[in-house]
């Protein structure tokens, strides 16, 4: 941090902002335990803006790259499915993830000088930069997310996909070599569905587990309208490769700030929910508990 107001903000919110070199100057009572200090970079954005960097952002916010509108639409939908209107994670979720990251490819190039005819398989290079994934976020699932144009005049699609990960040979930055690849086909109904998620967890797990910052892959994705049949006409093909996919990572953030669903479930089993105070919008007392609570309050008032 190189804020002009460093001294002021340090004074005001020393607990959150003390840079490492200034920690020894702080009153011992204000020094954070080592574990917390290590986690400073991982503080949620709501707390981070209270720090030096956040104060800078408030005054002159650094422009952020705007995400793809389709990607934004998908994540908003995911948010609605995952949280209430008040923003509380829904209780019925059974999965273990507490973080979902969506990356759009930072660059793509199309191989080859062949004419782009329908039905031709051609490769699209995708480069995903995963710098935002922290060391404490563990991968649970990774997905390639394709969006469909709903005006596609068909009720079903059969797609053939060839996916390969490219490793950059140190001796030659120009020509990446293919480290491993997978090919598969899938058939699905279109209906109102606008998105198709292709699970590539086992394919990308080895790369993400080793904290690879950049993933370079080539995707050949060609779809034919209708059910899979021999001698399918080329005229039935849809060029999926023109719509670059996003990469979705479902993660379990093990940092202290993240919500650990399994922990709260274990806590609830040990400590049954007690009646909440009245006027709480989150009160979930049953009628019996509410009556018991009221009786208890009347009794305590009488005693006083």
């Amino acid at each position: 941090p190189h804020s002009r107001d460093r001294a002021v903000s340090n004074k005001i919110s020393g607990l959150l902002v003390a840079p490492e070199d200034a920690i020894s100057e702080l009153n011992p009572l204000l020094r954070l335990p080592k574990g917390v200090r290590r986690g400073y970079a991982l503080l949620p954005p709501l707390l981070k803006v209270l720090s030096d960097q956040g104060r800078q952002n408030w005054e002159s916010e650094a422009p952020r790259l705007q995400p793809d509108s389709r990607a934004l639409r998908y994540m908003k939908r995911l948010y609605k499915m995952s949280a209430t209107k008040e923003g509380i994670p829904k209780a019925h979720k059974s999965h273990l993830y507490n973080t979902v990251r969506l990356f759009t490819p930072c660059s793509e190039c199309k191989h080859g000088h062949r004419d782009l005819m329908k039905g031709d398989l051609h490769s699209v290079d995708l480069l995903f930069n995963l710098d935002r994934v922290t060391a404490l976020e563990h991968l649970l699932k990774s997905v390639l997310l394709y969006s469909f144009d709903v005006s596609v005049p068909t009720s079903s699609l059969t797609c053939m996909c060839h996916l390969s990960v490219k490793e950059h040979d140190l001796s030659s930055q120009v020509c990446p070599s293919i480290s491993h690849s997978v090919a598969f086909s899938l058939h699905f109904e279109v209906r109102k569905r606008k998105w198709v998620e292709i699970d590539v967890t086992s394919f990308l797990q080895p790369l993400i587990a080793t904290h690879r910052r950049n993933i370079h892959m080539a995707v050949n994705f060609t779809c034919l309208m209708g059910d899979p049949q021999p001698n399918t006409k080329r005229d039935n093909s849809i060029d999926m490769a023109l719509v670059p996919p996003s990469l979705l990572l479902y993660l379990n953030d093990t940092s202290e700030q993240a919500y650990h669903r399994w922990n709260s479930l274990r806590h609830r089993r040990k400590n049954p929910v007690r009646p909440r105070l009245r006027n709480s919008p989150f009160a979930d007392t049953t009628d019996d508990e509410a009556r018991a609570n009221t009786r208890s309050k009347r009794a305590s008032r009488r005693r006083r």
Partner: protein
Amino acid sequence: DENLKEAPATPPYNLSEYFKQFLFPQNECELHSFRLSFSQLKWDKWIIAPHRYSPQYCKGDCPRVVGHRYGSPVHTMVQNIIYEKLDSSVPKPSCVPAEYSPLSVLTIEPDGSIVYKEYEDMIATKCTCR
């Protein structure tokens, strides 16, 4: 008893008002609603959802005998006794949150990626005295 001997014998101005404060304590420790909009903080450019955030807060006086109602540990009552009888520089117990709810947040990262994350202990749901 010592205080009664020292204090002048002046009756309260209104006995019913005097007793009411024991029957219906004013400003007792409880959860209060507070809602903020991220646009107020100019954070709405990078926090996509939720649009509003209700962290709530605890405020109020803690009774001398907290007991079962607030789920306070015994130490709270001990600290009250220390404050009243031994050393008034030792602070009285305070009304603070005891339980919290998590919050889901959807944000845009500096590199343009989007992240959905669930954060722990973001909304106060119950108060205690300690």
